[in-house]
């Protein structure tokens, strides 16, 4: 099973990396860019696990390991079932 997890800074936390990208794009003349936020994406390949178990452990992994809940939020989706 293939799973994608997106982790990004909470909206209340300043994202200087996103700002830097935004500035770079504006400098290059892409003035339609109003805002940029940068985050991380994890693509996990899971094996030998039921759909229900996956639904349980993915948020667990995300909350415990992949994201730091003080500053980050996450979302996930299953890309491919077995």
């Amino acid at each position, binding site marked *: 099973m293939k799973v994608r997890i997106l982790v990004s800074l909470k909206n209340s936390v300043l994202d200087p990396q996103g*700002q*830097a990208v935004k*500035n770079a794009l504006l*400098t*290059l003349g892409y003035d339609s860019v109003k805002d940029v936020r940068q985050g991380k994406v994890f693509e996990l390949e899971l094996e030998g696990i039921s759909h229900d178990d996956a639904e349980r452990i993915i948020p667990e992994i995300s909350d415990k390991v992949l994201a730091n809940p003080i500053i980050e939020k996450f979302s996930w989706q299953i890309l491919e079932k077995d």
Partner: protein
Amino acid sequence: MIDRKIIEEHNLTLDEYEKIVELIGREPNITELGIFSLMWSEHCSYKSSIVHLRQLPVKGKNVIQGPGENAGIIDIGDGLAVVFKIESHNHPSFIEPYQGAATGVGGILRDIFTMGARPIVLQDSLRFGPLSTSKNKSIMEGVVSGISGYGNSIGIPTVGGDVYFNDCYSLNPLVNVFALGIVEKEKIFYAKAEGTGNPVLYVGAKTGRDGIHGATMASAEFGEDSEHKRPNVQVGDPFMEKLLLEACLEVMANELIVGIQDMGAAGLTCSTTEMAAKSGTSLDINLDLVPQREEGMTPYEMMLSESQERMLIVAKKDRVEEVKQIFSKWDLDAVVIGHVGEGGRLKVSFGGKTVVDLPVDAIVNLCPVYERESKVPSYLESAKQLEPLPLPEDYNQTFFKLLSSPTLAEKEWVRRQYDHMVRVNTVFHPGADAPVIRIKNTKKALALTLDGNSLYTYLDPKTGGKIAVAEACRNLACAGARPVGVTNCLNFGNPEKPEIMWQFKETIQGIAQACRIFDIPVTGGNVSFYNDTEGVSIYPTPVLGVVGLVEDISEVTGPGFKDEEEILILLGENKEELGASEYVKTIHQKQKGIPPQIDLKQEKRIQEFCLEIISSGLVESAHDVSEGGLACCLAESSFLSSKNIGLKVDLQDEMRSDALLFGETQSRIVITSKHQNHQKILNLAKDRQIKATAIGKTGGDRIIIDQNGQKLLDVPVDDALKAWREAIPDIFAIK
């Protein structure tokens, strides 16, 4: 079948191919051809440079290992030796600045710790195009953060280096990285594959299809479209390398292995053949056992892969389990992939079949060697003619402009991205001519420097070569260190062009002469040819890395003024030499003229004198005069003093005022002394027949320079400091 097209794709000539057939007595298969193409590439074989490199002096009483191993080794007493080397990573850094530079750091570090030495410092020598374009800015940003990313993570301080800017590097930046390690003299390791039956172990990262043909890529010119068609670039993994470093040093300390070689450029091919060739043995390896990151890799791909962070080890037969245990402690696999045999062959099997069976001597030692044609470049005649220049109208403004030119400006923007303090050895002297590293548990310290002004070399390669050595040693002398060994990285264009070959030969002659006069052995180095993009070659760029030894760390001297009312003494002589100067380049926008000339014997005597008065305790600060001339030298000593002490100088020379202030005449050092010591210094100089002149005093908050009582320069230190310090950060500031 091997046809003409395949041969050409492997960057081999038809003659070379025929020689291969003759040497092995049959046609090679494709994997074997790949092996030859790597090992006979310019990068690995030095086929165009080796005849000229032989001019370099390599002997000396403290040389433990000269050229020919992964790195050179010099005895520094107390049972210790230093292991050092420089390496280029130019092409990869252009394609992928961050990863290119990062893997450059990783590669040179492996060269050091394969010899049993713990790396303790890094330096980097960088050349970029002008920062007026966003492309050049992003290359510089990427390269600096790549070096920082790798070096900081692995925990080896990047303590120094240099950065120059010139148009000729816009499409071909240079990234040369120097590393030095320290080892107990009795515990040095070599790339040996001895002992029939001894197992060959593969350790570190898994093999992927990384940078296949990287070594041949570094040996070919880039065309216009190469930005898109270029092969894979490797991604570095400093964490893996840190584990590898610790584990390798641990197996060495436990005397479990016979020999070890890193797999860098040319990977498994280079490490197996070189180890066998050095020991006159055979290596039998089975590719099925090689840890692989990707599926379906062919023997060709595995033999040519340049995946990083890998090592090949020949272990003692009865100690394999202990080796594996140590690697497993560091969460690394160590896999036996073959063994040592007799007969001088490399035998590789895959899927039960023999896919390679070649004589290693042919691969490693019998590559054809070329004495390529050379010819005086056509540009030279006119480039040496510097037309008469107008004198500046306002010296203060000219001075500010120079101080803020990126080549002269403060490089703290770079330096502070590097962890330069980890390992707690870096002696505190910010911005010093030569960073100083203490050696724990001894009174000694090392001083290091990298140097090379390519504009000089472009206009007069031999003089440029001499000056690169002389200036590096002068930097050491200012810190109070004596040079003990040299490594060098020679960055040039396409050696098949006779004009490039001429630059190369001349430069080496200059370097060789200087090393002889300074009596310092060259213990190794690197040649990077084919630094051309779209037919344009870089200026010939030798980068000299000189290692100096300070016998007593309490004598180390820095460039910053210590106090007010110190006497400023100029060692050496002012001459009217403006050609090839940063002043002419920045202010008059010309890269022309005859570079400053150098009398090496005179230079040596001045350096000896500087060392003598430093060790007699007569010197408060010392700084050499280089790019930007006397005015910039004096200003820097003010900027680098903790209280930004000003100065007032009156120069009594009859010459063009711009040449006096900004000319780059060689063999000059400005020192300061306490008032009560200065006469002693002047008298001593007289005895030694050194020209030494008291030119003024430190103090106040202005930089004031007169010529025969006539005011030339008069600016507040704060304003000058601002121009110098903020130039580079301003360029990179997010606006």
